[in-house]
C-alpha cells in the first residue's frame, strides 16, 4: 500500500471539491431544505400536519441528504471519468494497486456524505424553527450509524458509477433513486406501512430504510422505529455487499 499516492489522490479530490464548493452546496442542501420548508413549515403551520411531524421529518432528511450526497459524489465523477473524459486513467497509472483507487473514491465520498449529514442538521433545524424535539441518547451509537450510512452511500455510488452507462443516467434516477427515496421511510416511519403488509416487507431490501430508521432510533426515539441492532446489522450487510460489488465492477472497468 502506497500511502503517499493514496493521500495525493484524496488531496486531489478535496481540491476539486473546494473548487466546486458553491455548486456542491446548492446540489446537496437546496432540495432537502425546500422539502423541510414545505412539509415541516408550510404544512405544519397551516395545520395540515401535526407539530410532531417536524421531529419525525428531520432524521429522514438527514439520511436522505447523506445517502444521495455519497452516491452522487462517487457515482457521477466515475461515470464521467470512465466513459467520457477518461481522466481517471492518470490515477490508474499511478503506482498503487487499482483496488486502492476505488477505496480512495469511497473515502472521499464518505467524507462528503458525513459533512452533508452534519451540516443539514442545524440548517434544517433553523428552517423548522421551534417545536423540534431531538434527543441524542447515545452519541457513540449515533456516530456508528452515520458512519455506516456514509459507507453504504459511498459504496453504493462506487457500484452504480461503475455499472451504469452514461446514456442510462436518467434511467438510474427514474428506476433506482426515485423509488429508493419514496420507499425509503424517509418521510414516514417504517411502522406506518403496516396497513400495506406486502409493501412493508418489500421495502426491507431498500438500504435507505435502515438509514432513516437508524437516524430515527438515535435522534427521535419517541417515534416507532426498527431496533438499533437490526439497523446496524442491515447497514453492515449492505456496506460489505456494495463494497464487494463496487470493487469488482471498478476493476472490470479499469482493466480490460
Amino acid at each position, binding site marked *: 500500500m502506497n500511502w503517499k499516492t493514496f493521500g*495525493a*489522490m484524496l488531496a486531489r479530490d478535496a481540491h476539486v471539491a473546494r473548487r*466546486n464548493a458553491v455548486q456542491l452546496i446548492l446540489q446537496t442542501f437546496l432540495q432537502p431544505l425546500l422539502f423541510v420548508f414545505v412539509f415541516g413549515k408550510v404544512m405544519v403551520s397551516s395545520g395540515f400536519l401535526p407539530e410532531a411531524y417536524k421531529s419525525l421529518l428531520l432524521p429522514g432528511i438527514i439520511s436522505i441528504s447523506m445517502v444521495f450526497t455519497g452516491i452522487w459524489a462517487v457515482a457521477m465523477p466515475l461515470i464521467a471519468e470512465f466513459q467520457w473524459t477518461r481522466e481517471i486513467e492518470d490515477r490508474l*497509472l499511478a*503506482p*498503487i494497486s487499482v483496488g486502492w483507487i476505488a477505496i480512495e473514491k469511497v473515502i472521499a465520498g464518505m467524507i462528503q456524505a458525513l459533512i452533508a449529514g452534519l451540516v443539514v442538521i442545524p440548517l434544517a433545524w433553523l428552517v423548522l424553527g421551534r417545536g423540534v424535539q431531538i434527543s441524542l441518547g447515545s452519541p457513540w451509537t449515533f456516530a456508528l450509524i452515520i458512519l455506516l450510512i456514509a459507507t453504504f452511500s459511498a459504496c453504493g455510488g462506487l457500484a452504480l458509477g461503475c455499472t451504469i452507462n452514461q446514456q442510462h443516467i436518467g434511467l438510474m434516477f427514474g428506476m433506482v433513486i426515485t423509488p429508493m427515496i419514496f420507499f425509503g421511510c424517509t418521510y414516514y416511519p417504517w411502522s406506518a406501512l403496516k396497513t400495506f403488509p406486502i409493501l412493508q416487507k418489500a421495502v426491507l431490501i431498500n438500504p435507505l430504510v435502515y438509514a432513516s430508521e437508524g437516524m430515527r432510533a438515535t435522534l427521535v426515539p419517541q417515534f416507532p422505529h426498527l431496533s438499533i441492532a437490526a439497523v446496524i446489522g442491515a447497514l453492515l450487510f449492505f456496506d460489505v455487499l456494495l463494497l464487494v460489488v463496487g470493487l469488482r465492477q471498478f476493476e472490470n472497468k479499469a482493466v*480490460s
Partner: protein
Amino acid sequence: MAVGIRTLDLRKVYDSSPPLGAAGGFVARADSKGGKQPKTQIPALDGLSLDVQPGEIFGLLGPNGAGKSTTVGVLTTRVRPTSGQAWIGEHDVWKEQTRVKHLIGVVPQRPNLDFSLTAREILVFHGAYFGIGSKQRNERADSLLEKFKLTERGNQMLRGFSGGMMQRLSIARAMMHDPQVLFLDEPSSGLDPQTRILLWEIIREYHQAGKTVLLTTHNMEEADALCQRLAIVDHGRRIAVGTPAELKATIPGGFLLRLRFGNQSPELLKKLESLTGVREVRSTESTGVDIYADRGGSLISEIANLAASSGADLSDVHISEPSLENLFLHHTGRSLRD
C-alpha cells in the same frame, strides 16, 4: 540504467468491442434493449513477441486496428492479455504492477487529462501521485511547462486548450516522474507540422538521457525519422522487425511503380515481368499493376512502349522510392492508410 521491454506470444481476444484505453476511440454500443447480445470474439493480438532493447526508440508501425494500442495497453497494465507474458525490464507487468507503473510514462492516443484541474495542477498532482516532494514537483512542473511552451497557460483550466496543447501537456505529464520507459500512442496524430517537429526533438532529447521509448504510429515518415528499430504489425501479428534501413532493403528492388492501364491482359503482365530490373509484378484491381523493381524512372519509357505495342493504354504512373509504406504494402497487400 536503461530498461528494456519484452513480450512473449501475447494474445488478446476481446469478448466485445475493445473498451477504453485499448481501442482508438469511444466505444458506443447499441444495447438499448438490454437483451443478451451474441458474444463476438474480436482477436486484437495474435501471438505478438517483441524485444525492445534498453535505451532504444522502438516503433510499432501498422494501420488502425492492427493491435498497436492493445500492445501498449498490455505493457502499461491497462489491458489484461488472454495469454502470453510481458515484461518491463525484469518485472512481469501483470505480477508486479505497482513496480512497473513506477518505471513507465504513458501518452495515450486520446487525451485523458484531468478537466477539473489547471494545466499546472495536472503536472503537480501527477508528481504527487508518484511520491515526488512538494518543492521538487513544483519546480519540475514549471520547467516542463516551459519546455512545452505552456507556461502562459499554466494556471488555466483545459477548456479552450487546442488539441496540440493538450497533446503537449499529456507528454509533459508522462515525463513528470522521469520514467525509464516512455510509451507514446500515436503521439503526432492531429498535430500541426511545427508541433510535430517540437515533439520529435523532445523525444530524441529524452532518449539521449538514456531512456527507452516505444511509440506507435501509422505515419511512416515519423517511424522513419524517429525510430531506431521498428516492428510492422497487422492483425495482431508481427510481420517484420528491424531498422528502417534493413526493413526497406527487404522490399524486392526497392522501387514501387504503381501503374494504371486502359485495359490490361495476362500477356501484358508477362511482358512487364520480362523487363530488366523488374522483380515482381502484381495485378491490383482490374486495371492497376504494381511493379517492384530495381530502378524507377528509367523503366517508364520501356513500359510505355510495351503498353503501346500491346494496345493497353497507360493512363497513370506513380513512382515511389524505397519506403516503409511500400514495405507494408508488399507484406500485406494493403496500404497503411486503408
